[in-house]
């Protein structure tokens, strides 16, 4: 039995205990500077837009209405606009959940088996090469005018980025780590649950964040080819009536929806993966 003790370590960082999760979240929230510049830019652009449309005759109101008129239009007919908002939001969310589930589930066999990967890849890439707007009318023929064609378009748009990033995530586990787990005869499902899935999460989330913005596009496309409600339908309707304020009001709501959903995904990502923390204390040296 050897009696040599490990040499004492230098611990310059020992006075600072690791920050708790909530402390780290607080640190993140207490950084309003990151919102100041983009927020200021948006306010500046809207103010410029308001001034130009209000005090000059450079553009006709039916081309570019005043921002204030757009807001007034929303206030004037809130039930129609927000009713449409609710319809589109439902399509986006349900289609997004469906598309993401399909994306992650299809990624599993692809990541685990090279032959499945070779078999499915051309098909999946072909499915993305087809413009969704081109097959949307066909979907209406197949599936009718109800919810299904819209959800299908949304799911079709969402599943691709989610599938691609998930494949990458599930396959990107360090070779040595997999060897280490093999060397202790670890059950496959344990390896999946404790290593592969958490390892893939950041990748999956980058796909989900792309997917959520595409989902809004998908819902609008779905509504364009056959719908009698929703913001996409309202957009077409307003366009045909040359009702530019209504058109802009719908657009604003779509943008708000996309941005809020994207931000929501980021929040979920941070809650699920606190270790993906950009602000870390400096490394402790040994």
């Amino acid at each position, binding site marked *: *039995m*050897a*009696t*040599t*003790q*490990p*040499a*004492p*370590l230098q*611990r310059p*960082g*020992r006075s600072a*205990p*690791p920050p708790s999760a909530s402390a780290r979240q607080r640190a993140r929230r207490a950084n309003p500077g990151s919102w100041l510049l983009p927020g200021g830019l948006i306010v500046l652009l809207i103010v410029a837009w308001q001034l130009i449309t209000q005090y000059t005759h450079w553009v006709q109101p039916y081309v570019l209405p005043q921002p204030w008129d757009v807001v007034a239009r929303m206030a004037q007919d809130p039930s129609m606009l927000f009713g449409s908002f609710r319809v589109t939001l439902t399509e986006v969310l349900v289609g997004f959940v469906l598309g993401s589930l399909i994306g992650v589930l299809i990624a599993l066999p692809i990541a685990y088996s090279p032959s499945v990967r070779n078999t499915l890849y051309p098909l999946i890439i072909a499915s993305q090469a087809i413009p969704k707007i081109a097959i949307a009318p066909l979907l209406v023929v197949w599936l009718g005018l109800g919810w299904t064609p819209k959800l299908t378009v949304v799911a079709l748009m969402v599943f691709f980025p989610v599938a691609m990033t998930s494949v990458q995530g599930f396959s990107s586990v*360090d070779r*040595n*780590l997999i*060897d*280490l*787990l*093999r*060397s*202790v*005869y*670890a*059950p496959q499902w*344990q*390896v999946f649950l*404790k*290593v592969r899935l*958490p*390892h893939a999460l950041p990748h999956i989330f980058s796909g989900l964040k792309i997917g959520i913005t595409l989902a809004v596009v998908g819902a609008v496309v779905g509504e364009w080819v056959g719908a009698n409600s929703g913001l996409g339908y309202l957009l077409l309707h307003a366009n045909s009536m040359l009702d530019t304020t209504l058109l802009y009001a719908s657009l604003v709501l779509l943008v708000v929806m996309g941005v809020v959903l994207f931000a929501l995904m980021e929040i979920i990502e941070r809650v699920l*993966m*606190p*270790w*993906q923390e950009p602000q*870390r*204390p400096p*490394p*402790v*040296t*040994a």
Partner: protein
Amino acid sequence: MEPSRAGGVAVRAVSKQFESRAGRQTAISGVDLKIAPGQFVSLLGPSGCGKTSLLRIIGGLMEPSTGTVSVDGGSVADAVRARKFGFVFQDATLLPWRTVRANAMLLLDVIGRRGEEARVDALLETVGLSDFTNHYPAQLSGGMRQRVALARALALDPEILLMDEPFAALDAITRERLGVELLGIWDGARSVVFVTHSIAEAVLLSDRVVVMSTSPGRIVADVDIEIARPRSGSVRSSEPFKAYEDQLRGLIEGVRA
């Protein structure tokens, strides 16, 4: 040194070929090696001598092309199922979402061994990490991460510890320090197969140094290091230590010539 439980390895006439674009490559050829239970054996040689392949074959991560390996008289597959091996690689490969303690417990977790927190904490203290059990890997230096990887392997209480250049990615000073620490951590209750290309590291740690040559990888010398244990870092400036270093250097250079 205490008598060990088990962990004897017998490698008989093992060769390994790889298919590559350049054709058939022989990584190791005709290797015979017996490791007694509780022995610390280093595989020493230049890059490409097949020492890592040999280690992976012993640990069941790779099949030999020809030849056999037995562990405690049984097959390697049985030894893997009985969880007799503990691996440490050059990279710590810690999970960034697990704390130091949770990383050290990972292998116990995935094989369903519960209730060994106290033992793992004791191990973390042995490797000098008791103040860092709740830190995340990103908060640690390379040397500390490698200590966690060592604790993770020891947590299994393996009969055979397989270490593949575990300190090679570290800076020279940390590397030396960890080598000396490993002297104190290794309790002689398990065999160790230690792959390295550092002569000093091999002499410091080993009961026996097996020198390998390149293309094809084979064993060219097997040197017993008869320096009394317990050893400490100061042994490196002793005459016998330098004599062993010179002997091994001569063997390696003879191989290259």
